[in-house]
Structures are given as C-alpha cells and as structure tokens.
C-alpha cells in the first residue's frame, strides 16, 4: 500500500508542482497524518532512543522551566536577605549558599536565566537568518558576481575579531537590553555558518535526486524549495544549537570581565563579583564562583549534547526506521 501510494504521489507531483499549485484536497488527511508522523512523533521516538538528545533536551527544558516557573517560585534575591557566605548544601533555605552580600545564589541563577534565553534567542535568530540567506543565495548563484560579493563580505567579517568589535560596540551604545546584547553577539556569529550552508547547498545540488528532479522537468522553484531548502533545515538546526552555545560563552565572558553594562542578574556578573572578591584564594568564598561556573558548563553541555543528538535525529535512515509512514524499502 505504501509503495502504491508513493507512486501515485509521484505521478501527480510533476503536474502539481509545475503549476506551482499546492492544492491537494483529496489526500489532505493522509498528508496531515503523514506530516504529523514525520515531524512530531518520529523525532520524539528517536529522542527516546538517543541518550544524548534526551539528556541534552532535558537540560535545556530544565533551564526553560527554571527561567519561567522557577522564577515565580523563588523570591527575588536582595542583598542582606540572608547571612553572608552560607556554604552550599548546608541550609535548606539556601541550597547553593549565599554570596558576600547575603544574596541567595540559587535565586540569582534563576533570575538570570530569562535574560540568558533572550540573548540566545535574539543572537541565534539573527545569526541563523543572516547565515541562511547569505549561504543559500551564494550557493544558488555559485560563481556569479553576487556569490563573490557575499563571500567577500563573509570573509571580511570572519577576519575581524569578534570580541574586540563587540566590546567597542558595547562601549559606544551601552546596551542594557538583553535582546540588544544578543544581536551584537549574533552579528559576529553568522559568517562561519553562512559558509557551511553554502557548501551544503553546493553538495546537495550535485545529489542524484536533484538531478532526477531536473530530468523530470520540475520547475526551478520546486527544486530549490523541495529538494534543497528542506534538506538544509536539519543542518541549520544542528548548527543553531552550537551558535547558541557560542553566544552564551561570549556574553557570559563579557559580563565576567565586566565590559557590558550590568542591569540585572547575570551568571557572568556573579562570576565577576566572586572573582573580584578573590574567591579563588579563599575557600569560604569558593562556592560563590563555582555555582555560576557549573551552571554555564551545564547549560552549554546540554546544547552540545542536543546538537549531537539532533545530528542522529535528522539522519535519514534513522528517521525511516522509527517512522510509521515510510515503507521499509527506501524508495525516496
């Protein structure tokens, strides 16, 4: 039945796409079922078979909960709310201890989380959009003046060291809004991904199925959209987790050395205060530095695992094995 279905599909496909008309009413419900299976259920099924994806997404979801639900459960830390320098795991009121100003460390971590996500979101979206546009455009227009122009811009941005530039930008504009900080960091993070997407486009263009779509006489638009752009999605998603990790590294680093204006709680700021207070040399302050460090490492560990797990999630063969609507015989 599956075989017959897909053969039918293919016959209609050429006509359908030739007229650039995607109205396929008769198989609507079937299509819906299939797309739900492929986009929702299969990934979840694979998720539970790949420990990296599972652990990685659990960590990320954990942080999301921390920044949303957690924030409403924990009271906002203020200085002097508790005894100073309570060691971690000693008091049930202050599980991770308190800092030199008597602020609860766990609460500070929680209150810093939403801004972290805002930065990652703004920076990630900007970086990926720029990278996808630049990469796809120059990949399609390979060898043209446009391609050369875009790639020259990309190479120039790669060669201008990011952090000094971001620091100068931050010094001039004094960004307090986490979205703006994210955008500044995103500006520096797209060129590598743009080049990667471009070479991905180039290699997909050479694939046999693109060739056969051409022979079948499908329109250029269809080939670009159905055969090439869709194949890029997973690749982009995997890379976006890594872009998020870079943005976290850089923003926390800049807050850590104290060149970004401080407006609220931030993991880097906690590290900065602890480091300035010589926490490295004084055992009773040590946890103050350790708590934000472990938080950052845990969050980026989640992102790294997530991106590795996604890698296998989008592995075509693996997908086929876990889906219900794709036949065993790989005829696509």
């Amino acid at each position: 039945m599956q075989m017959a279905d897909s053969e039918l599909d293919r016959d209609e496909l050429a006509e359908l796409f030739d007229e650039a008309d995607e109205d396929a009413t008769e198989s609507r419900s079937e299509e819906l079922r299939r797309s739900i299976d492929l986009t929702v259920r299969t990934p979840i099924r694979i998720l539970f078979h790949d420990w990296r994806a599972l652990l990685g997404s659990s960590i990320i979801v954990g942080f999301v909960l921390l920044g949303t639900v957690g924030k409403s459960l924990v009271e906002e830390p203020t200085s002097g709310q508790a005894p100073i320098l309570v060691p971690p795991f000693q008091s049930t009121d202050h599980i991770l201890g308190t800092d030199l100003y008597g602020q609860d460390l766990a609460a500070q971590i929680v209150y810093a989380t939403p801004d972290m996500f805002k930065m990652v979101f703004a920076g990630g979206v900007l970086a990926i959009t720029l990278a996808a546009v630049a990469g796809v455009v120059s990949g399609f227009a390979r060898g043209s003046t446009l391609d050369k122009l875009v790639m020259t811009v990309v190479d120039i941005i790669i060669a201008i060291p990011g952090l000094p530039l971001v620091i100068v930008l931050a010094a001039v504009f004094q960004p307090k809004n986490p979205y703006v900080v994210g955008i500044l960091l995103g500006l520096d993070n797209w060129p590598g991904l743009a080049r990667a997407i471009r070479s991905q486009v180039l290699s997909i263009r050479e694939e046999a199925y693109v060739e056969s779509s051409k022979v079948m006489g499908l329109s250029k638009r269809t080939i670009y959209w159905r055969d090439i752009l869709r194949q890029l999605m997973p690749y982009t998603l995997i890379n976006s987790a890594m872009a998020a990790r870079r943005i976290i590294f850089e923003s926390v680093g800049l807050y850590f050395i104290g060149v970004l204006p401080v407006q609220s709680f931030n993991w880097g700021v906690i590290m900065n205060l602890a480091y300035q207070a010589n926490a490295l040399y004084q055992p009773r302050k040590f946890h103050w530095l350790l708590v934000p460090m472990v938080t950052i490492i845990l969050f980026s560990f989640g992102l790294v695992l997530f991106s590795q797990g996604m890698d296998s999630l989008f592995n075509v063969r693996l997908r086929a094995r876990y889906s219900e609507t794709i036949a065993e015989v790989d005829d696509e």
Partner: protein
Amino acid sequence: MRYFLTRLGQAVLTMVTAVVISFALFQAMPGGPVEAMRSQIIQNRGLEAGGTNVNMEQLRRLVESYSNMNPEDPFHVQLLDSSKNIFVEGDLGTSIYRGEPVTSLILQRLPWTTFIGVYAMVIGYLASFLIGSMMAYKEKSRFDSVLSVVLTALNSVPYYIVGVVLIFVVGVKFGLLPIGGRVGSGVDPAFTVEFFASAAAHAALPILSIAALLTNTALTLRENAVRVLGEDFMRVAKLRGINDARMATRYVGHNAILPMYTKIMIGVAGIFSGTVIVEQVFSYPGMGLLLFDAVKTRDYPLLMGTMIFFTAITVTAILVADITYGFLDPRIGAGDADG
C-alpha cells in the same frame, strides 16, 4: 600566484573595513564624537567644570588633536583624513586618559598578545591534529571513546573557565606556575635566559586556556580522518605498498585537514578574540587589557586603535594560515575552494 594576490587584496580590504567601521562607530556615538569626548576631556584635563564655560573653539581643537579629525568637516573628508593618518602615517590619535599617542601605547603591548596568541594557535592546532588523528587511527578503541567523551565535555567549558580552573589547580593549589603578569618582578627585559624563562612561565597558563578554544577541532579531524580511512584510494594505496608515514601524512592528514578551511580561519580569529578575556583573567598586560582599560576610562581613540590593531594581527595570522593552506590544497590554487 593569483591566489596569493587575491588573499592579499582580501586582507587589505578587511583592514579598510575595520577602519571604516571604527570610524563610523566614532560618528555614531550618542551626540557625535564632539559631545561624547567633551565630558571625557573635561574630566581628564581638568578644564573649567560645568561644560557651558568651555570654549567651543578650544574644545574643537582638542577633539581634533585627540582623534585626528576635524569634527566640522563633512563625513567623507573626515574619513579620508583619518584613513590617511592611519595607513600613511600610522597615527591613531592620542589617548585621552593617558595623553600618549595611541600607536605607541599599543606597540608596547602588541608583542605580548601576539606571543600568547600565536603559541596558543600553534599548540592548539598541533595537539588537536595529533589527538584527532590518533583517535581516528584507533577508532572504536577505549582510547577513542574515552577521549571522545572528554573532548565533548571540554567543548562545553568556556575557555576562560578553563583559565580559572588552571589558575586554581596549577597556580593556587600546587603553586607550579605564576598566575599573573607577563614576567616576574625584578626580571629585566633583555635577551637573557632568565627573562625568556620567566616570560614563558607567565604565558604558559594563558596560552593553554586559549588553546582550549580549539578542542572541537580534534573531534572534527577525527571524523574526517575516519571517513578518509574508509575511502577506496586508501585501500589502493595500501595495495601499492606505500609506506605508513607517507600514507599518514600525504593521504590521511591531507584529506582530513582540507575540508576544515573555514573552521581554521574562524579558529584563528577566535583565538585573538579570546585573548581579550583571558588577559583579563590572568591580568596579563597585553592588548586585551589595554582594550579593557580603554573601555573603563571611555578612552575612545585608544578603544578604536586597539580594535584596528586586533584586526591587523588577526588578518596577518589568517593571511599566513591562508598561504600555508594554499600550498596544501591544489584546488585553492586553481581558484575553486568550496571547503
């Protein structure tokens, strides 16, 4: 030859872009350069307080002498003026806070940052290539799987946290290496063994922590090398009886490193970026610390100058890497690099 010229042209273009960006930023400062620098000059020069009493003409001249631009000229004239000053005369203006020429302030720091950056780059890449190829060679062995986990974990640790941990373990706990400054106190900067030993000991931890940026290179190399080892031409090479050393370098090494072109260039830029944070962690007085001081004192000419020089080192390092790469990759020489 054409390849080298293109690369050189690219490097020059990058430098010009950096200058234009820094210039545009200068103009984009809230209220323009005059307004932004005014309060700084008043503060640091002890001019008549109050701001309104300041002679506008005097102020204009001060801004001009610090930034090398006449704030009343039209935009393009200012841009041309400052570009001429930078590229022809090597003059980046005067530091507002320290009152010294920006160029000479930077040149005092430049060798130190270059020193830790270049060593971090060389050590980081050599170690990654070595570890990555060993992992590929012993694929699926215990060594391979343990190191894969270790490297993945290291990948999640920011390099400046590596630095903090190194300070704690090597410096504080065991007292093995110095953890701040660039030479020991009382060591004269001269061509003596003592001076070089002290400089090397002080630079060791900063270099190691920046090199930690490159840990994922080892994993990428491993992946590439595993793929190359499975290729048909490897089997053919083995049958032809080509010796192991030649196979490891010419066949595996070559083909595993080549697809990493963009990654390596980004890594080089990342290393010099990374010195900014690492120098701060180790209080290592290089250009990163200078940039940091410039931010703290709102010293705009120094800020712009440091950014331009950071770009200059990075562009040079990338150019060197690029040319080295050109020798490796025959496709690049032919003008067709889609790595």
